[in-house]
């Protein structure tokens, strides 16, 4: 029998995990953040349960500051595949005018972390799929595929449940939940190669294009709409840029690039000198900042 390739093995592992969750967990949900990892997750979910539709809803936590194109993409995907797409925004945060310019780390906490907790509480989900990978960051490298959260959604890294072979223990107490990461063992390179192999549609923000941007604190920030606040001396320039991760546009740094095809992106990525989270502004704050936020319930 033909031997499986590295990508096929990773695919099979992710699908095994998704089927286990669908079979054993009471109320699962798939978190959908519109990025390339979410696109891969959605693609895997469509394949895993075929000819059935994925037997769980999708949840997008909308901070209201995402790139405009992301929202269009999300709605189009939901329509195309007939998905139950739940969108949740922390209304309290919106009413208080919380924004990425004035509130820094508090913005991320209120509009992302708190919003996610509120959404999980509102719908009483017992298991939530995330697209996190272990190659992204040092504390993630330590996290199990099935990662248990207490009643306040916190992670206890010193007391993780042993995960033996593929015998996942999904038992939880009332009020607890489990975060499940089917892409744990994928690398950024694997993601791109899989996207190419499977011809998975991703937002065009990943491809280099002339875009209006400003240079700020060593990052290239796109002026996605007229809510963008310019600092004194900042000038909007048109540069050919692309994004390696997608998030809230004022907090997502682009890179100058000529890569406007998948092959060109993969070539750039394979020769990459900085790992992808560098362009996510919050992660540079201090070593250990990701672990701290995860303990508090961040994905």
């Amino acid at each position, binding site marked *: 029998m033909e031997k499986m390739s590295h990508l096929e093995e990773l695919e099979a592992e992710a*699908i095994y995990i998704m089927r286990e969750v669908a079979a054993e967990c009471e109320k699962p949900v798939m978190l959908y953040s519109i990025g390339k990892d979410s696109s891969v997750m959605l693609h895997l979910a469509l394949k895993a349960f075929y000819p059935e539709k994925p037997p769980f809803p999708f949840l997008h936590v909308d901070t209201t500051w995402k790139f405009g194109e992301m929202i269009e993409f999300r709605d189009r995907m939901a329509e195309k595949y007939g998905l139950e797409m739940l969108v949740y925004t922390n209304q309290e945060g919106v009413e208080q005018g919380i924004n990425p310019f004035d509130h820094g780390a508090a913005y991320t906490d209120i509009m992302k972390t708190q919003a996610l907790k509120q959404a999980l509480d509102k719908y009483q989900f017992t298991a939530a799929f995330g697209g996190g990978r272990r190659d992204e960051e040092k504390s993630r490298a330590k996290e199990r595929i099935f990662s248990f959260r207490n009643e306040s959604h916190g992670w206890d890294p010193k007391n993780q449940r042993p995960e033996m072979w593929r015998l996942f223990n999904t038992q939880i107490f009332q009020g607890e939940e489990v975060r499940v990461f089917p892409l744990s063992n994928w*690398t950024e390179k694997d993601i791109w190669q899989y996207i190419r192999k499977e011809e998975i549609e991703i937002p065009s923000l990943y491809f280099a294009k002339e875009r209006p941007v400003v240079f700020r604190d060593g990052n290239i920030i796109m002026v996605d709409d007229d809510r963008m606040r310019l600092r004194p001396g900042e000038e909007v320039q048109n540069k050919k840029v692309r994004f390696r991760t997608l998030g809230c546009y004022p907090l997502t740094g682009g890179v100058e690039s000529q890569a406007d095809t998948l092959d060109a992106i993969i070539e750039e990525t394979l020769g990459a000198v900085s790992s992808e989270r560098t362009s996510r502004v919050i992660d540079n704050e201090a070593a250990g900042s990701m672990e701290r936020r995860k303990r508090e319930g961040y994905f």
Partner: protein
Amino acid sequence: MQSLLKFITCGSVDDGKSTLIGHMLYDAKLIFADQERALELDSRVGSTGGEIDYSLLLDGLMAEREQGITIDVAYRYFTTEKRSFIVADTPGHEEYTRNMAVGASFADLAVILVDVTKGVLLQTKRHTRICALMGIKSVVYAVNKMDLVDYEETTFREIEAGIRQMAAEYDFHSQFVIPVSATAGDNVTQRSEKMLWYHDKTLLEYLETVDVAVGEEDGFFYMPVQRVCRPDRTFRGFQGEIAGGEISVGQEIETLPSREKAKVKSLHVLNQSVEKAGKGRPVTVELDREVDVSRGCVLHSEGDIHLGKLFSCRLLWMDDQKLVAGKNYLLKVGTRLVPATLMNIKYKIDVNEGTHIKSERIYKNEIAVCDIACSEQIAFGEFKKNKILGGFILIDRVTHMTSACGVIRHPLRRDENVVWHEMDINRQLRGQHMNQTPKTIWLTGLSGSGKSTIVNELEKLLFAQGRYTMVLDGDNIRMGLNRDLGFREQDRIENIRRVAEVAKLMNDAGLLTLVSFISPFRRDRERAKNIVGEDHYIEIYISTPLEECEKRDVKGLYKKAREGKIPNFSGISSPYEPPADPDIVLDTTGKSLEESVTSIMEQLEKYL
């Protein structure tokens, strides 16, 4: 197409595992620039002074960096021109052995670090044993810190001999012993110039070329069913991953445990319709007839799979609570989850010498040979032939902890004289079986105070929580068991004594016993408490005052008592002695039944 090697690194504290891997990634330029920057930044603020500390690359948790040790498994991914690697860096500290086993269960090969200045340590032996237990067949011993012994060959050879002697008892397919210096980089990715006496491969070269699949056969088809896919009435497919062999359309398969035969009608690998599929593929199998198959069942064809309830196993205990025979767990094997009882501990295996030690109790990080009885028939395999259906975990039914992982040695038959652990099936075990601590909840109070009504509601609530209960009610007992007793003093004492003895028996059976008796005398209640046992006795005083009870007078008894028609009526013609120190007190005056019961339940929680 590149092959993938999953390996783990393990060794004792300070052997330098993280440093070794860090060095490999660093030398091969496999770390990204910003991680490198973070590494240098961390090193400067860290305690290693000046030089880059490679272990900071892997020890990702704050507590790990503070303490300078690895607590949990870290996974790293790298690719060379020859191979893709996933490496699980596992903790060496004894306290985190279970985390090491997690890494081992995932890997095909182990790199075990040995400190050349210390030689084979207790941990080295334990880690070797755990790797073997979890099914690893290829082992590399990296004899580290050669720089500290001036790269001397004789020192290395002595340690190598010790290692080979230790590893001889296992059935590893390949073993490789290599002298290295992780901090200086000798023989890690580049041949050391200081050890010209060493002619074999460097560590990385070896990892790039070793074949870990040696001795593995394709074998027969089998697949544990993960879920049943039913998009509509016309289609019913069984989804799972092929664990062994291959399957094709038209092939006859058997279902387990229902032992029905059917032919494959259609086959999908994910969303593609195919004619056949092999090991490792995620498939959806449609059969040509209706069969009794659901999640946890197994499809196979001519497989060496056992069907039964009993087997002998070797297990690694991972829970802080000790293992005691007789306890009931949830057992997961393949995709099947069933209640199972650990019948007896045959012996403990000494992690150092491999000797068998008779033992009643197994503590965390110990290995034992045990017999397990499942509550239902399950399909399982022998681990050495069938990793997927031969490995299992035990889940604690109360804490939900993964208490143990184990491997099945062989099935057992009833007639093979399976002996239960020499133990008394006692109150504690029966209680554990029911997931509760048996107690007697004794309600005392005047006639009409609300005892019986409350007890009935209380039982419903406890029952709804999944607890096993029994109510002993004064009036009912007097009509049956105590029919021969009147209301004289010796009868009254005997009445309470019998009820207390019955309550105790019920507790021994594992039940929560609710007793609703006026029991007006303190001395009688004291006796009952002594019979039941102080630790198991909870006293609830329904303190509704006499005026209120008399006002209610549901059975018209107070009226009769006032008219002198009932002698020795508690509160009227005989005293009621309120408890001096009850566990819970409740006056039902002005309270609804719901309020009363909720109040009691809240206070009761802490005793149950």
